[in-house]
């Protein structure tokens, strides 16, 4: 019952965690999306403003150039003279020819629509390319222009004759007192409108508008992208349309603002005045397009958040499931203690046990047969070699006895290998019979067992006051035996015959060490030392079958510890093994 309630608690906790994670994800997503919204709008505003600035600057330049064209005409003395002559005598062919050739040159060079020579009274003297053409708007503007005496621009107007929209540069002719005026008529379709309409980025709704104030109205000077009808045909009263960017612009407002454009659609607009002109420039884009991007972003964010929540859910559910599995496991263990395993588990355990028993039996049978069947021939090899030695006795040559010696030595070595292999297999599978071990005494007797008294006298063997340990005494004895005899063996060629045994608590383990000042080894090979049949030294230099340390490792691992080594060539080696400290 306890476990059940714990499971429920775990489940509830999982849901709470999941809820919290999902909420956090959604909050983070929302905050980010809102921030992104604002940032994106600002960015688009800046973009619009830079478009407006670029266009405004170009428009100013364009105007300056046009007025410059006017000044060139205005200051041309020869042209003024021809004009004066022609005014005086309309039949002066030479004067006419001179005027026409100049006008042709001017028109061809600068791309004007038409040029008109106006008399002081507003009568059109000469047109080009159509000599007889007239322009009422220009004619009407002549007196004022002559009065001002400076080159000026006649802003967008609609010509009554052909119904088209034009601009004109009015250049008074004649130094001091103008005798007339040259009008350079500009067709905005040739450059101005396309230039204004051009939008530098791909946009569904981006548009630049040129507007001027006319009375109480904002007059749209160029063609509109979203409204059929010609340029100059839309005028909207400033009064009553505060939300209209064009109205704001002609009222002198500049900067970025949100509003509704001539269609009534919400837009983001950048307003700018074109200096030295009646024009204002509006660069605008529909808010819906701005928001489409943030909408997309929001969609992506939403999906991302969804995916994240999904991942979190999976993780939390997996964790909960894992925890539940864990608690099931605990439950099963508890039930086993109570002798009440459920049927399925029992079956599985039985199956596993059977498998284990089978493989263990197999292993034992193998080991048994190795022990018996491999040993017997070895015994014969050794025994009969000895018999041969005895039988042949003196008649055996020195080489003969040496060879027999080699045979016997090999047989004995193989015997020791088999023993060690059997030991390893035995240490792996026999049950530990643990007791409290006086490790200090065990280390000392291991030393005593592996050296003869004469050698012992030449050794400085020190055992510190090391902690006791709990373990299988027979096995731990093998560990000390192997480590101490190794230390002795590899100390022999070295001048320093000193072995130090130490042991100390490290966390919940006791780490014992056997340190010598012998020949040592290359630290790079340290992990190899504990492998089976791994030897770092020649058989000829040091006896041994290469299994001792493998046995050490196996035994220590059986006890829940670990074995490792440190060494340097020529400086000695230290072997360590750890055992779990006794629980009190």
């Amino acid at each position, binding site marked *: 019952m306890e476990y059940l309630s714990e499971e429920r608690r775990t489940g509830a906790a999982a849901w709470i965690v999941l809820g919290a994670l999902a909420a956090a994800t959604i909050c983070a997503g929302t905050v980010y999306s809102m921030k992104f919204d604002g940032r994106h709008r600002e960015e688009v505003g800046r973009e619009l403003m830079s478009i407006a600035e670029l266009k405004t600057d170009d428009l100013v330049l364009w105007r300056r150039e046009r007025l410059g064209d006017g000044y060139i005409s205005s200051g041309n003395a020869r042209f003024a003279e021809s004009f004066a002559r022609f005014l005086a005598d309309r039949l002066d062919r030479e004067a006419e020819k001179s005027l026409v050739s100049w006008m042709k040159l001017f028109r061809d060079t600068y791309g004007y629509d038409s040029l008109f020579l106006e008399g002081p009274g507003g009568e059109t003297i000469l047109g080009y390319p159509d000599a007889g053409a007239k322009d009422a708007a220009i004619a009407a503007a002549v007196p004022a222009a002559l009065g001002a005496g400076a080159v000026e621009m006649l802003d967008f107007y609609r010509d009554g004759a052909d119904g088209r929209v034009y601009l004109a540069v009015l250049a008074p002719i004649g130094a001091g007192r103008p005798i007339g005026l040259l009008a350079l008529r500009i067709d905005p379709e040739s450059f101005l409108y396309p230039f204004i309409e051009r939008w530098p980025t791909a946009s569904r709704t981006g548009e630049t508008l040129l507007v001027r104030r006319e009375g109480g109205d904002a007059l749209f000077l160029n063609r509109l992208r979203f409204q059929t009808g010609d340029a100059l045909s839309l005028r909207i009263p400033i009064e009553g349309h505060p939300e209209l960017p064009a109205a704001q612009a002609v009222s002198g407002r500049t900067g970025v603002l949100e509003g509704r454009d001539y269609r009534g659609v919400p837009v983001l607009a950048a307003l700018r005045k074109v200096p030295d002109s009646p024009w204002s420039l509006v660069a605008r884009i529909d808010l819906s397009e701005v928001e489409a991007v943030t909408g997309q972003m929001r969609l992506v964010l939403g999906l991302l958040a969804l995916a994240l929540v999904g991942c979190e859910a999976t993780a939390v559910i997996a964790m909960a499931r894992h925890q539940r599995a864990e608690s099931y496991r605990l439950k099963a263990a508890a039930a086993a203690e109570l002798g009440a395993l459920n049927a399925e588990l029992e079956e599985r355990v039985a199956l596993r046990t059977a498998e284990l028993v089978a493989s263990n039996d197999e292993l034992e049978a193998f*080991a*048994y047969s190795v*022990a*018996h069947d491999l*040993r*017997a*021939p*070895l*015994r*014969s090899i*050794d*025994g*009969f*070699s*000895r*018999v041969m030695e005895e039988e042949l006795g003196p008649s055996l040559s020195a080489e003969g006895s040496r060879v027999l010696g080699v045979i*016997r030595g090999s*047989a*004995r070595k193989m*015997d020791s290998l088999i*023993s060690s292999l*059997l030991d390893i297999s035995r240490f792996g599978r*026999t049950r530990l019979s643990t007791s409290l071990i006086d490790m200090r005494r065990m280390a000392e007797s291991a030393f005593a067992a592996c050296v003869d008294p004469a050698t012992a006298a030449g050794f400085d063997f020190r055992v510190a006051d090391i902690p006791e340990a709990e373990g299988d005494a027979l096995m731990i004895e093998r560990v000390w035996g192997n480590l101490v005899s190794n230390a002795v063996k590899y100390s022999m060629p070295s001048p320093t015959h000193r072995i130090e045994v130490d042991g100390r608590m490290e966390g919940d383990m006791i780490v014992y060490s056997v340190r010598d000042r012998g020949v040592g080894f290359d630290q790079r090979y340290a992990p190899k030392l504990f492998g089976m049949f791994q030897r770092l030294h020649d058989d000829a230099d040091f006896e041994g079958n290469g299994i001792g340390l493998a046995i050490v490792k196996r035994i220590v691992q059986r006890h829940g510890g670990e074995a490792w080594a440190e060494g340097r060539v020529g400086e000695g080696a230290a072997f360590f093994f750890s055992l779990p400290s006794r629980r009190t």
Partner: protein
Amino acid sequence: MADKRQVDILLVEDNPNDAELAIRALRKHNLVNNFCHVTDGEAALDFMFARGEYSDRDVADRPRLILLDLKLPKVDGFEVLEALKADERTSMTPVVVLTTSQEERDLIESYRLGVNSYIVKPVDFDKFVAAVRDLCMYWLLLNVQP
């Protein structure tokens, strides 16, 4: 086979090489005058209970020591041991298991069945000879039997 009556040692060993080495070891120290070598457990029991091939023997003429290998054809060493120790005519005869096996379960099983000694045959012949010498010395000369 040696004299069936005057047998000091019954050697039960199926491996002829091992048997030969054991016999050489026995002879080496002149500790044994007569011994009988049988190669399987059934022959060992026949000998002890004077059956079959050995029906002309007297059961009362017991060898002074039995050297028994565990791995034997037909009837294995444990069965021989069990049969001998179960029968009061033969239960007094000391049985020394002389085997290759160092398996603990073999050792335990042997003692459970009442073995008197358990010797693992060393591979080193010199040690083997020494072991045979020691055990014969002990069981034939030093040990006092009822």
